[in-house]
């Protein structure tokens, strides 16, 4: 019962008044940024990264986890009540949730989303508790070749599998890798791409890239294209669920959690696939009398399932982050950046070297889930008011917070010019539908992957064959190739079948 006592210890750390305060502020702030359009958890965590200079590691990780978590709860509120979904994660929730709200069932939709998030989040937290130490124990055995292959897998899935176009995904990834190259080379200490600018020797701050790509580009995009967009808000109704709603929601929550959690565990993140999968499952399994509700009055299963899947995925995504040090989404990538600011490298050793921190973080997930349920059920009316903030003040205000994040990190006005440049880059990317997650993941993971690659080849005494000589690394390589080739092969095959059928 080693895990049990470690977890109790974690609760003891997480439940100190100061840490509870950080968890609460994180959850509240997370819900707020989830509700507010134009700002998400990745942006919020990035803007607040400068606090890592002063706040101690445990407190700030609890704080960031609260934001990460809270934003998922808040995001569903917006997607149910507004006709424009905030997060990609809540796109599916928006489909049925919006329909439910339009037919006067906003309250039931909000309730099933919040309770479902709680149920699935708690199940996934139990999974993190039980599985993470086991994975960490296993991961200790991995050497640089295996790590490099795992990172390659993360790169592949984040750029080539998620998103619309593999070409644009890969372009984004390599732009991210290029940004990660700026600064001193980790192994040889060689300066690369600094152009003689001393500020660039330390590399480009992740805060700048994240805040520029998400917040500044969002504001610039809004002012260019969204001035005339009319937003309509659905009417609120009492946040409560009938007996029938419960009966329909509970199985959907459990199925959503079962679908979502495995997707979080593998270094192939993204919530799009599990949420869509859960939606499709619910639609197929729905009883005939409810099937007609899908896409019309809005079916409660279609909110409950995907919302649970979403939360299970983001929670379980902490397993690869903590045990392997591999982030698979914007927010986890930035949380990895936060760990790095403390000189902590997440990975298998984390569970032995920073056991107190890890277990406090895991305990805070349980606590955070309860806090969020309270924040989002009785107090949902308060968050809904945030949707009334007019756009000019909202975006102008976001820019002030962007300044804090970008300037606070290094106290350099040069960074603010760079922030603008990255904002414009983000605007171009957004305009032409280039995904941003590969940039952030590439930038943070790039230097780590490079170090693993070079260490691996050193082990192989200069030969890249080392990747093929070790069974684990070959296995992962095969998975990478499968991930790249299978979807295309299936698409090609289906296309051929369709063409044959047409003839």
């Amino acid at each position: 019962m080693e895990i049990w006592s470690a977890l109790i210890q974690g609760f003891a750390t997480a439940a100190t008044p100061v840490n509870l305060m950080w968890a609460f502020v994180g959850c509240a702030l997370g819900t707020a940024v989830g509700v507010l359009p134009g700002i998400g958890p990745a942006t919020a965590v990035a803007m607040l990264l400068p606090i890592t200079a002063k706040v101690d590691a445990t407190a700030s990780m609890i704080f960031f986890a609260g934001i990460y978590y809270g934003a998922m709860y808040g995001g569903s509120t917006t997607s149910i009540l507004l006709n424009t979904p905030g997060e990609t994660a809540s796109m599916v929730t928006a489909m049925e949730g919006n329909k439910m709200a339009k037919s006067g069932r906003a309250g039931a939709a909000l309730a099933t989303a919040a309770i479902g998030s709680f149920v699935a989040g708690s199940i996934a937290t139990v999974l993190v508790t039980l599985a993470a130490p086991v994975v960490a124990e296993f991961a200790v055995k991995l050497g640089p070749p295996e790590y490099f292959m795992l990172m390659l897998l993360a790169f592949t899935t984040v750029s080539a599998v998620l998103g619309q176009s593999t070409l644009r995904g890969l372009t984004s990834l390599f732009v991210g890798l290029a940004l990660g190259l700026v600064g001193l080379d980790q192994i040889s200490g060689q300066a690369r791409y600094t152009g003689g600018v001393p500020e660039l020797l330390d590399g480009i701050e992740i805060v700048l890239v994240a805040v520029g790509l998400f917040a500044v580009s969002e504001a610039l995009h809004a002012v260019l294209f969204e001035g005339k967009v009319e937003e309509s808000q659905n009417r609120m109704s009492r946040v409560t669920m009938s007996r029938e709603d419960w009966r329909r929601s509970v199985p959907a929550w459990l199925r959503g959690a079962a679908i979502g959690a495995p997707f979080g565990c593998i270094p192939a993140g993204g919530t799009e696939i599990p949420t869509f999968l859960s939606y499709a499952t619910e639609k197929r399994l729905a009883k005939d009398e409810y099937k007609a509700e899908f896409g019309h009055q809005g079916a409660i299963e279609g909110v409950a399932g995907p919302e649970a899947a979403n939360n299970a995925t983001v929670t379980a995504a902490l397993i690869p982050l903590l045990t392997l040090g591999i982030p698979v989404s914007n927010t986890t990538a930035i949380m990895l950046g936060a760990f790095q600011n403390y000189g902590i490298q997440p990975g298998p050793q984390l569970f032995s070297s920073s056991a107190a921190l890890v277990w406090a973080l895991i305990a805070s997930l349980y606590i955070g889930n309860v806090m969020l349920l309270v924040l989002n059920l009785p107090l949902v009316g308060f968050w809904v008011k945030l949707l009334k903030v007019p756009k000019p003040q909202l975006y102008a205000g976001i820019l002030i917070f962007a300044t804090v994040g970008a300037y606070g990190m290094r106290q350099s006005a040069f960074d603010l010019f760079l922030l603008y440049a990255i904002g414009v880059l983000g605007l171009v990317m957004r305009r032409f539908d280039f995904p941003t997650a590969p940039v952030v993941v590439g930038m943070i993971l790039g230097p780590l992957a490079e170090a693993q690659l070079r260490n691996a080849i050193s082990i192989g005494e200069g030969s890249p064959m080392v990747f093929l000589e070790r069974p684990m690394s070959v296995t992962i390589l095969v998975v990478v190739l499968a991930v790249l080739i299978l979807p295309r092969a299936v698409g090609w095959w289906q296309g051929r079948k369709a063409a044959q059928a047409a003839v």
Partner: protein
Amino acid sequence: MSQDKRKPSLLQGLVGLGVVGIALGLAAGALTIPSAAGYGGVGPNFLPWLVSAALLVCGGFILYEVRTGGFRHLEEGPPDEAPYWPGFIWMSAGLLANAALITTLGFILSCALCFVLASRGMRNAQGQDTSGLATWIKDGITGVLIAAPVYWLFTKFLAINLPGLTETGWL
């Protein structure tokens, strides 16, 4: 093939050229990085060359897509409305003025200025009338009301250095 019926635009071509340009820039930079590989067999210039080559290939494919019908699988088609450039200029002015003035004006005033300019851009984009002095004053006050507590919170409670106008730490 699923292909969008969107005309290839000049802008998409420019994006492709931009990617190629970045690739060439990276290659030019990679030339100056020594290749001393040591035991590794892979030196500090390996990844720069790899990234540069990969971006060149990506840029090439993007240009090919543009020439053969435009970007594939565009999720977010360009909105029908033309971009509202005056708003963009106001907001850019706000951000750049903030970058230029933050060390002289201090965080609060500089951010309030950025707030006023950015908010004006967005108001104009929404078609609001901003000719009077009232909006300027209102936005200025709102800007200070947001920036000042943020400044105090970060400098006093979190001990993060943000520039002030005076040495007192309150303004």
